[in-house]
Each structure stands twice: as C-alpha cells, then as structure tokens.
C-alpha cells in the first residue's frame, strides 16, 4: 500500500510517542513515520523509560494523564537520563497547565501541546516550523 509522504524532510528524527490510549499513540507514530520521522509508540510511562534507557530519542512526546506513572514524572526522569532530549507533553485537561507551570518553576521547562491537536500542527511543531503553529 502506497502512501502520500510529506515532501519536507524530517531527516529521520527519532520520536518516542507515549499515550495510554493505544489508538492515539499508534496513529501519531504512524503519521510521524509517514512524514519522515522515526517514531515508536509505547503505552505507559514504564515502557517509555525502558525504551529511553536503551536509546535516547531526539523528541519525547508524551501524554500527561496516564495510570500508574504520570507523564510529567516520567518526563523528568527522561530529561535526567537524556539531557538533550526535547520533551513535549500533550493533554486534554486544563489542569495540566498548572502542573507544567509548577514544573517550570522547578527548572523543568517542558513544552505543552493541547489535545486535540491537528497532525499538521503537530508535525510543524516537531520540525520547529513556527509558520504553521
């Protein structure tokens, strides 16, 4: 099956996508892969940490509200293990913003993306293209 591929090169940027909703994690990874990224999907924070231990991704894209370990705590560990990783958190709940504000106050300046987010906007953000953001 052939797919339309975005022409803008993403130079094989590695992305780890984390969301307890399998459909979201899988679809985002699929979209990113079709647009030149090298994305992997995992479904909880522990699996994400195991992945990160093996290999630091360039971008760590994670949901915030997840069972067992939340995305924010996991992101802090990821940032410690991989100081150069770009951490992007996305959430459908307003209260998340307060969490991030507190985290920023503690030195963890993570980017926040609101759910739902259109794939084109997501791709633009990951590529650092501000025109589409």
């Amino acid at each position, binding site marked *: *099956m*052939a*797919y*339309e591929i975005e022409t803008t090169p993403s130079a094989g940027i590695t992305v780890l996508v984390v969301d307890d*909703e399998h*459909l*979201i994690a899988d*679809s*985002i990874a*699929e*979209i990113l892969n*079709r647009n030149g990224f090298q994305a992997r999907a995992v479904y909880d924070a522990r699996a994400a940490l195991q992945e990160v231990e093996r290999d630091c991704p360039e971008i760590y894209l994670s949901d915030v*509200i997840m069972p067992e370990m939340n995305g924010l705590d996991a992101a802090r560990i990821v940032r410690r293990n991989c100081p150069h990783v770009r951490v992007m958190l996305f959430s*459908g*709940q*307003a*209260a998340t*913003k307060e969490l991030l504000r507190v985290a920023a106050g503690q030195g963890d300046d993570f980017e926040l993306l*609101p*759910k*739902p*987010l*259109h*794939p*084109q906007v997501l791709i633009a953000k990951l590529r650092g293209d501000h025109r589409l*953001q």
Partner: protein
Amino acid sequence: MNSSTKPATGKPASTGKWANVVNRYGVAMVFTLMALALMEAVPFLKIAPFMLLVAAVALSARYAGFGPALFSSVVSILIADFFVLEPRFSVAIDLHRDFIRIGEFFFVSLLVAQLARQRTRAEHVIQEVRQRLGAIVESSEDCILSKDMNGIINSWNSAAERLYGYKPEEVIGRHVSMLAPPEKANEIDDIMSRLRQGERVGHLQTERIHKNGKRLSVWLSVSPIRDESGRVIGASALTHDVTAQVQVERRLHGTERELAAAYDRLQLAQQAAQIGSWEWNIGSGKVMWSPELEEIHGFAPGTFGGSLEHWLQTVHPDDRESLQKRVLAALQQGGQYDAEYRSVRPDGSVYWTAARGKVFYDSVGRPQKLVGVCLDIDQRKIAEENIRQSEKLAATGRLAASIAHEINNPLEAVINLVYLAMHDPSLSPESKKYLTLADNELGRVAHLAKQTLGFYRDTSAPVRLRVTRVLDEVLDLCARRLESKEITVQKDYGEEPEITAFEGEIRQLFSNLITNAIDALPRHGRLRLRADYAADWRDSGRPGVRVTVADNGCGIPGETLAKIFEPFFTTKHDVGTGLGLWLSQSIVEKHTGYMRVRSTTTPGRSGTAFVVFLPQSAGVAAKSEVSSAA
C-alpha cells in the same frame, strides 16, 4: 375559756340505769343521815332540827335530783319523828303540834327541791350550750384562738393546730407574737391597742409563720371579748388561710406581667426584623395588619383597607390564585398556613414576601380566625438566586474539567485517523473531498471543545484584525443555511473598523450571535449586521468598535431574556447546548468589552439585537495571560 376547747371525755354510757338510781338515792340518804349525825353530835342543833334536814334535802336536790330530794324529805320526817321529836325513839307524834311542823318542813323541802332542780337543769343547759359552742369552734375550718389583754393565748382550736402546726399545749400560755413574722411585731401591738379601745380589727390581710418556718398568707379578724360588765377582757382571733389564693394571684399577676413583657419584646422584634403580624377574623371578614406590615407593603400607617379583598389586591396577580388555594387548604386541612409569594406595593414595585400562620378553631371545630406573620424576603430571594447562579457556574466548571479529558482524547484519535485516511493516495477524489470536509468539521469541533471545556488557548498573540472581514467569513460559513431559509442579509459597515483581539475567539463570538439569529428567523427573514467605530458607552473616553447583530425573528420574552447568558440555558432543546451565549459573554469580557441585548415580541415589529462593544486594544494584552491560564 381558759383551756383547750376540746370537749372533756364523757363517762361511758354503759352505767346501768338502776345503778344510777341507787347512787342518786344513796347520795340523798347519805346527806340525810349526815344531818342526823350532826344533830346527834351537836345537841344544840336540835333546837331547830328541820334546818339541817332542809339543808340535806337541798343538797340531795342539787346533786341527786328531785326524786332523791323527795326521798330525803320523807326520810328526814321519819328521822325527825323518831330521833328528834318528843317522845324520842318513838314514832308517836303530837298531832297538833308536830304535824304542823312536819307539814311546814315538807312544804319547805318541796320548795327547796324544786329550786335546786331548776338550778341543776339551768346548769345542764349552760353546759350543753357551752359544749355545743365549743364543738362549733372546734370543728370550724377557720383557725380560732383567743387571748387575754396581754396577748397571751388561752384557747386554740384544731384548725389553728392544722394551720400553724402547734399543738394547744405548745401555744397556750405563750404570747401571740410567736405566730407573727418579726417584721410584723408592730402589727400585733397595733391590734392589741385597738382592742383595748374596744375596736374590732376586721379583714386584715397579713402574714403569719408556721411552726416549720413557712410563711402563710392569712385574712385576720380580731374581736374583743367583754365580761358581763362590758369590760374588754380578751380577744378572739379568726384566721383564714389564703396562701393558695395569694400564690395563684401572684402567679396570675406574674403571668400578666410576663405577657405584657412578651408583647413588648414581640413588638420590638417585629420592628427590628421588619416582621409584620396579621389576623383575619373569618366570621367578620376583617383583616388586621400591624404597623410593620403596612410599612412592608408600602402603606402609610392606618391606610390598609382591612379586608381580605384589600389584602389580595397587594398580591401579585400571578400569585393570587395559588395563594387563595393555600389559605383554603389551611382552613380545611392542616390548620397551618405557609406561603412565599410576590407582592406589589402601591408604587408598582414587586417584591417577595413570606407569610406563616395558624388557624384557630371555635369549640365546635369551625375555623374562627387565621393569625400569622409576614415578612419581606426580597433580599433573601436575591441572595438565593445569586447562590444558585454561582453554584451553576461552579458546577459548569467541574463538569467541564471532568468531561474535557473524555472528549479530547477520542477527538484526537479521530482527527489522526481522518488525517491518515485522507493521505491515502488510493483514495478517489470524491472520498478525499469528503474526508477533507470531515477534517474541517473536526477542526471546528476541536476548537469548540477547547473553548467550552476551559482549555482554549489561542496560541497566537492578539492580532490586528478587521472586524468586518471576520463577520463576512462567518457569513460564508453560514451561507447554506442563509440560502435555505431565504434570509436577506443587510450589511451596514462603516469604516471597516479594526481591533486588536484573539481572532479565533472573535470569530466564535460572531458565529454564535449569527447562528442564533438564523435560528430565530423565519423564512424570508432579515439579518442585519452593523459594524463601526464607536466610543465605549460606559466609559466614553475609550475608543473601540460596536458590532450589532439584529434579526426580525420572534423576539425573546422578558423572563427568558434574563437568563440567556446563563450556562446551559437553552430554548433550542434539540440542538442547543446552552453554552453559546455564555461563551460569547466570556469572550467579550475577556476582551474587556460589553454586550447588551434588546428584544421585543410585539407582533409586527418583533426581533432581537445583540450589540457588542470591543475596545480597540486596551485590556486585551492584560487579559491574554488570564486567557492562557484559563
């Protein structure tokens, strides 16, 4: 009387009649023989022997009665004949000389016996009367005592014993002041001095002391006792215990005082709490209002008409019927009346009142009157309404937070899936067009979800935008609906005004207002859009833009108009969420603007106009931080 009036214990009635007769005649015999013995002992007395014998007959009559006296006189004659008259120790008599002497003796002895008997009878009568009087005094329910002129008690009846607790032997011989409380010592002296002057002391209400120290309330009457010569020799005191009555009177008096005080307090409370009281006499139909109630209802003092009709006239027409039903129900069933209703003052102002009452019935159970209170609860109603509003808002916030996550996640998944499907190169152009439409619609849903569920973040900074362009874009989006209803759009744009604002939100605002107008319009209706520079109508120094969205639809009734900005209030039950205007209002406020609405339902010129003022730039920057934190 110088002792207790208690009657002496009588001899037992068992003494035989015959024994009594023998005793009495024996006594007569003894007296007669004693006279004889005396004569024998003192021979000188024999000169007049009948003198002693008359004395014996008299004594017999006095102590043994008339019969024994006769017996004594017969025996005396025999003794005189045998022992005294010559010849002595013989029954022979000198008929001529002695018979006359014996006859005289018999006659005199009969006379003496008769007199003695009368005296005895009189003495019996006196004793009987005395005993009867004693018994009356003794059995009296009132305390009766007597005292001498020194105040020393000398008689004491059973009622006195019951009243004061003292036995006769404990009081007789003691001064009467022992019965009076110390502070009444003067009273005793006063009574004694009045008695000495022969005065009577009647109906004196005073206090006395029981043996156990308890105070007694008594009515006292003291009368002087006089001897045969009329000299006052003592006094009798009649004392009636009225302690119970006095206590009842005091209690009654206390109750009256308490009632008066309670009434005063009630009046004060009514005045302070602005509570009025009322009473409806069902028989006469008269209604009484307290001054407070007149004040509450805006009447000058004394101007309330005083009938049920007058009262009902003060009730809001919409509440009259239900109120009458409540009154009727109170009369027929419960006896309790409780209502909250709107009243109208003579100046036309409407306010809430609460009334509570109770039905009073007559002896056969017919309702007699309805009595109760009434108060102005307007402030309370306003406060309640405010609380309801804020609770509704708080509930809205909680609801938004809880459903945000549940809605945004599936939305994210669907958007991703549509995106993937849309980029499948094997898609037919038609399918791709459908998916593009679906993607656009999803974009709208996502935008709305973010805004309404509190996560909206217009990531772009406030931009300079032309208001008329945004209005036109919204009109384009609604083109199909405008066409299907054949609505005429009349645009009245001034100088193409510009403002600095969050474009997405302004678009949402105009979209809500225009969509509502289209919903309200009938076929062939007219939609008017007006936009121009204007000054803030509340703060004329602030420049901005005024946008009007008007329709000539059915209009919004007054009671609905007051609620249209409340969250979840909708008249479009099938399609509306009740959040559109609430959201629009918050967008306008975020831009430090204002929105007002005018509407009329009058046929022929019905319609609604929303007028929005948005400042040119002021306030937006300051508010943008708030918005991003929202």
